[in-house]
């Protein structure tokens, strides 16, 4: 009896979180999938259920025959959706490259800093990550708007004569994404650069490389795993971003997270939003799988 109790206590460590995730993660996800093939209705909730668990196996089959791909067809036909997907991917890509451009020198400088400073610098990079995402995005509104601080500064320095329109454009979205996700880029890069063997650079110099050549031939290729990890960590969440485009972006800033949100709350079209969500996931699976594989390869090489 006692051993059985102990056994079940051990199993509890699995079953408790397992069941929780089955109920609150997998089931909702299947509901999204189901709803994406249901028809829209003006009701509360605003859809005709495509499948009813109470119907029994035969009923399920009848329900499955009623599944509709209409929502998906609608998405492919309506330019708003596919434009949102492409624009999300493009904005995420540009922002990722910009983040790399800013993050790499920062991580490199941190890795070169005196050893006793590095933990502090690392903590300073992580700290903003702990402060509210929403607040950090909000902080840029005051800086970027027409009568904002950036324009005031540039005007007073005489760099520009008319205030720039940055807020509510894609540029503001780029800035917001770079700013919010910079720690995600810097952390894997720093971890990689810091543990690189400095004698490799000396060996390269000894064999005739200048410092600049040694960087491009040794440091840069060796930092590739960090670069890849950082880029994926920025790119993947940026594609589905909602807060940044809705606070900093303009009416022409199409991002799928925002489109989905509006579809759901403004148009109350739940089946379409579900179909939008499923396609977004399918799009994200590609980079996620690529990321997983590169991580696995990095672990393999590290062994």
């Amino acid at each position, binding site marked *: 009896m006692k051993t059985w109790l102990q056994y079940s206590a*051990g199993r509890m460590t699995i079953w408790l979180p397992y069941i929780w995730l089955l*109920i609150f993660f997998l089931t909702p*996800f299947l509901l999204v999938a189901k709803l994406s093939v249901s028809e829209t209705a003006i009701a509360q909730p605003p859809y005709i259920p495509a499948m009813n668990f109470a119907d029994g196996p035969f009923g399920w089959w009848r329900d499955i025959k009623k599944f509709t791909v209409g929502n998906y067809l609608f998405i492919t036909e309506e330019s708003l959706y596919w434009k949102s997907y492409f624009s999300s991917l493009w904005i995420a890509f540009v922002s990722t490259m910009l983040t790399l451009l800013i993050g790499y020198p920062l991580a490199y*400088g941190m890795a070169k800093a005196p050893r006793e400073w590095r933990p502090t610098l690392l903590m*300073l990079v992580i700290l903003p990550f702990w402060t509210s995402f929403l607040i950090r995005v909000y902080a840029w509104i005051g800086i970027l708007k027409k009568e904002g*601080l950036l324009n005031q500064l540039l005007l007073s320095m005489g760099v520009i004569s008319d205030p720039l329109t940055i807020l509510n454009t894609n540029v503001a979205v780029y800035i917001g994404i770079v700013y919010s996700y910079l720690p995600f880029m810097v952390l894997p890069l720093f971890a990689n650069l810091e543990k690189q063997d400095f004698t490799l650079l000396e060996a390269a110099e000894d064999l005739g490389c200048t410092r600049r050549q040694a960087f491009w031939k040794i440091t840069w290729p060796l930092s590739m795993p960090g670069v890849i990890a950082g880029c994926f960590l920025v790119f993947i969440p940026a594609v589905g971003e909602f807060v940044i485009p809705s606070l900093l972006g303009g009416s022409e800033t199409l991002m799928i997270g925002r489109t989905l*949100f509006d579809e759901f709350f403004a148009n109350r079209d*739940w089946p379409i939003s579900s179909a939008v*969500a499923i396609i*977004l996931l399918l799009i994200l699976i590609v980079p996620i799988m690529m990321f997983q594989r590169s991580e696995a390869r990095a672990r393999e090489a590290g062994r």
Partner: protein
Amino acid sequence: MNRGWSPFNITSVVLGFAFLYIPILILIVYSFNASKLVTVWAGFSIKWYAEAFANQSLVDAAWVTFRVAIVSASIATILGTLAALALTRYTRFHGRFLFSGMIYAPLVMPEVITGLSLLLLFVAIGMDRGMTTVILAHITFSMCFVAVVVQSRLVSFDRSLEEAAMDLGATPTRAFLQVTLPIIAPSVFAGWMLAFTLSLDDLVIAQFNSGPGATTLPMKIFSQVRLGVTPEINAVCTILVAVVATGVIVTSISLKRQELQRQRAEQLAAQA
């Protein structure tokens, strides 16, 4: 061998940190601005803080957010720690692949999808949306973060310590509670902190799953921000930043002090 910091290195670090911190600093500074115009400095004042505290709906939202964060972080920490144990200890069980998939997926899942899917669940089972649904939603996504944080510590945990405890007569449960848990406690606490701040931060998932009377602070801020920047919101944000930053800094300093004390004790022991 360090060949020192080149001017280029120093410049990129300084500019990088300036970029990271100046926007938040500006936000904080202007929360003390006497003028209603957020971008014009008109002298020091704390009147916006007074107004924020006088605004009943803001205070209510803060209170809701705080309770949601405390409850969801605590439950998520328990579930996440159990999940981390399951992942590191039980390398073979039925559905492990699905299990680890469900742990990692929410980390990369766009928030709009998590929010939407949970809403559909609550609608399907006929649960009224309110604080409970927000808490359930927050537990679900933050337990995965806790699991990852605790798991990374458990991987390097020396299991022979637990075996030694059992060899000395402790049951597995006691061995876990008396040996393993105290050792992994810092990472469990870090997991709790992470879950707490994630819940404090969350806008999108709460937006989907909250109901009347359960407006969280981020929802409140978001709806106000859409109407424009106000010094009152600056004040609220400053308080939030201050609370979280203090928590993080105090925790990491105390962890650092523990570490230093341990190192000093080891040095003394080595010299003796």
